[in-house]
């Protein structure tokens, strides 16, 4: 154990002195998360704010007064005339207009008989056009409702009959986690990904780099066992992976604490995690870090040099990235509650972290996730030790 710790201390010291490791694994996550969340906050604010835009209409004179004033007070700051429907279609197709409207002749009269049809020209390929259509539909829907209410009131019919079935919403959230925060899908992904990328930037130097520089031979001539050397390096790499992941969390906490104008709607309630949630996240993260470190070290030990190591790592990162990315969207499907998620490496960790952020603890899922990560870490480290014990670690050409 003494030799393992001795190697761990030396490797850690060397890694922490490497500017690439410090910037990639420790400073990078904090800064990037900060920037990503600011961007997220900006987009979120922009989407929530009613967008004042130009409304294009064919035959402005047919625009009913009630609708014109509703549009002016809502989303349309300016109303522009389009000569014909085909001109309107061209404008929408070319992305110059989000929505072009044509009102029927004598619209108010037709509306009184329940026979007014408005033509809305939009482009479903453009999200902004889709949003403009939905916004316009909402506006017309509101006008319809008001008109219906007037009729009902005039005839002395109870107003409730207009909406005979109503929905009463009740919040069943435990209130312990991040709740409805939009980040609950993104955070597990960031935590998982940075645990991997922090180590990925450092691992090539640990074994493949030592081979290339000739220091591995010196190390292997020492009387320390190959298992101890491998474990010392594994511990140092695990620390980098863990700190990298925690750095990404630090970025999130920083954004939540500072409550900047752009990002305050991302954490409307701030971050309130219970001790149990924090412990659950750590229980998932530590085996995950061991799993990533083992896997990364296997690649670095197999590679002949830094360049080969980096090539393999780039491929490996895609394999890791896919389930991590999927974890962001799984809650929108029924798969999120399936048991198979608990046995899918990486996905199970992200899913368990998500549960913990929501204040939910699933002991079976957690146990499965921890066991699988540890099993992969053990197999990887067994491979690393086998490679260290074979002379090919130095002679493979």
């Amino acid at each position, binding site marked *: 154990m003494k*030799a393992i710790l*001795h*190697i761990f201390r*030396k490797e850690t*010291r*060397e890694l922490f*002195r*490497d500017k690439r490791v410090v910037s990639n694994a420790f400073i990078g996550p904090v800064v990037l998360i900060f920037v990503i969340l600011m961007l997220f906050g900006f987009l979120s604010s922009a989407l929530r704010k009613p967008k004042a835009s130009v409304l294009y209409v064919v035959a402005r004179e047919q625009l009913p007064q009630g609708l014109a004033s509703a549009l002016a007070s809502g989303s349309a700051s300016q109303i522009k005339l389009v000569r014909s429907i085909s001109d309107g279609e061209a404008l929408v197709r070319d992305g110059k207009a989000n929505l072009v409207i044509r009102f029927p002749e004598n619209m108010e009269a037709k509306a009184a008989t329940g026979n007014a049809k408005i033509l809305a020209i939009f482009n479903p390929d453009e999200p902004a056009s889709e949003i403009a259509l939905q916004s316009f539909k909402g506006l017309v829907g509101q006008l319809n409702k008001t008109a219906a209410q007037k009729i009902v009131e005039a005839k002395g019919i109870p107003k409730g009959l207009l909406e005979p079935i109503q929905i009463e919403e009740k919040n069943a959230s435990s209130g312990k986690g991040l709740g409805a925060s939009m980040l609950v899908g993104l955070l597990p992904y960031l935590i998982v990904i940075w645990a991997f990328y922090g180590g990925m930037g450092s691992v090539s130097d640990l074994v493949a780099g030592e081979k290339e*520089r*000739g*220091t591995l*031979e*010196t*190390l*292997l*001539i*020492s*009387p*320390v*066992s190959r298992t101890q050397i491998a474990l010392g390096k594994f511990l140092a790499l695990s620390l980098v992976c863990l700190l990298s992941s925690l750095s990404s969390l630090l970025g999130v906490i920083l954004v939540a604490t500072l409550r900047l104008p752009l990002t305050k709607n991302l954490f409307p309630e701030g971050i309130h995690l219970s001790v149990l949630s924090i412990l659950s996240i750590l229980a998932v993260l530590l085996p995950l870090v061991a799993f990533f470190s083992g896997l990364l070290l296997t690649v670095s030990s197999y590679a002949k040099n830094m360049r080969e190591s980096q090539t393999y790592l780039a491929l490996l990162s895609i394999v890791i990235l896919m389930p991590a990315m999927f974890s962001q969207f799984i809650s929108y499907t029924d798969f999120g509650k399936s048991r198979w998620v608990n046995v899918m490496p990486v996905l199970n960790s992200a899913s368990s972290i998500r549960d913990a952020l929501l204040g939910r603890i699933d002991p079976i899922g957690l146990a499965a996730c921890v066991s699988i990560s540890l099993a992969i870490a053990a197999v990887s480290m067994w491979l690393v030790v086998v490679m260290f014990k074979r*002379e090919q670690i*130095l*002679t493979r050409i």
Partner: protein
Amino acid sequence: MGMIKPAGCRRYGRIPQMIRTCGLSKEFIDPKRKAGVVHAVEDVSIEVDNGEIYGLLGVNGAGKTTMLRMLSTIIRPTSGTAEVAGFDVVKEPERVRAGIGFLSASTALYGRLSPREVLMYFGGLYGLSSGKLAERVAYVMDKLNLHEFADGLCDKLSTGQKQRVSIARTILHDPPVLFFDEPTAGLDVVTGQTIMEFIEEAKMTGKTIVFSTHIMSEAERLCDRIGIIHEGKICGEGTVASIKERTGQPTMEKAFLATVGYSAAA
């Protein structure tokens, strides 16, 4: 792979041998070659006495490095046996490694550590207690005059300074056996001279040394006995004088060429 111990390995017996090999062979599989198998070292039996400098003299690719790598337990012999400082290189590799120091021209240092940190690290790996380690670090730093750059990063050192630190690392744990694999290759004259002087001093302190080189003058200057290795086989062994006498050549260079069967016409 099981070891085959060839019969007929001689034993001196008068002086305890610090290094002894018997039928030592190493084969590599090389898929790029037609034959597939490369016989890097073939049936080598040598003995090196305590306090002796034994030179492995051969051209590039003769098998010198493979031989030293087997003796220092980095690679396993395909067949044959070898003992270093009384321990079998296959059965007790860690005990062998505890008793050896290894230096080559390509031996590198950790660029982001200082020479002092490198020495402390390797001292720890060799199991030196903190008191003993401090004492040995101070000793090697004095001996090799490392003080002026002891706390700067190794990456910033000149080639000569790096080589002095490598020497310090090699002798830090005071091993009885030292292996030098072409230690002066690629170095300037002054740095090369430092290493030669260091090897001479090591001999005076009773170290057993195996020294591989292809430079005849170095072999003549340092070695008590020389083994001429060619295409993986020892094809001549003895003192410099005896090899010259046996081949009837006036210089070591010519004696070497005669031993390996080189002729100008070829």
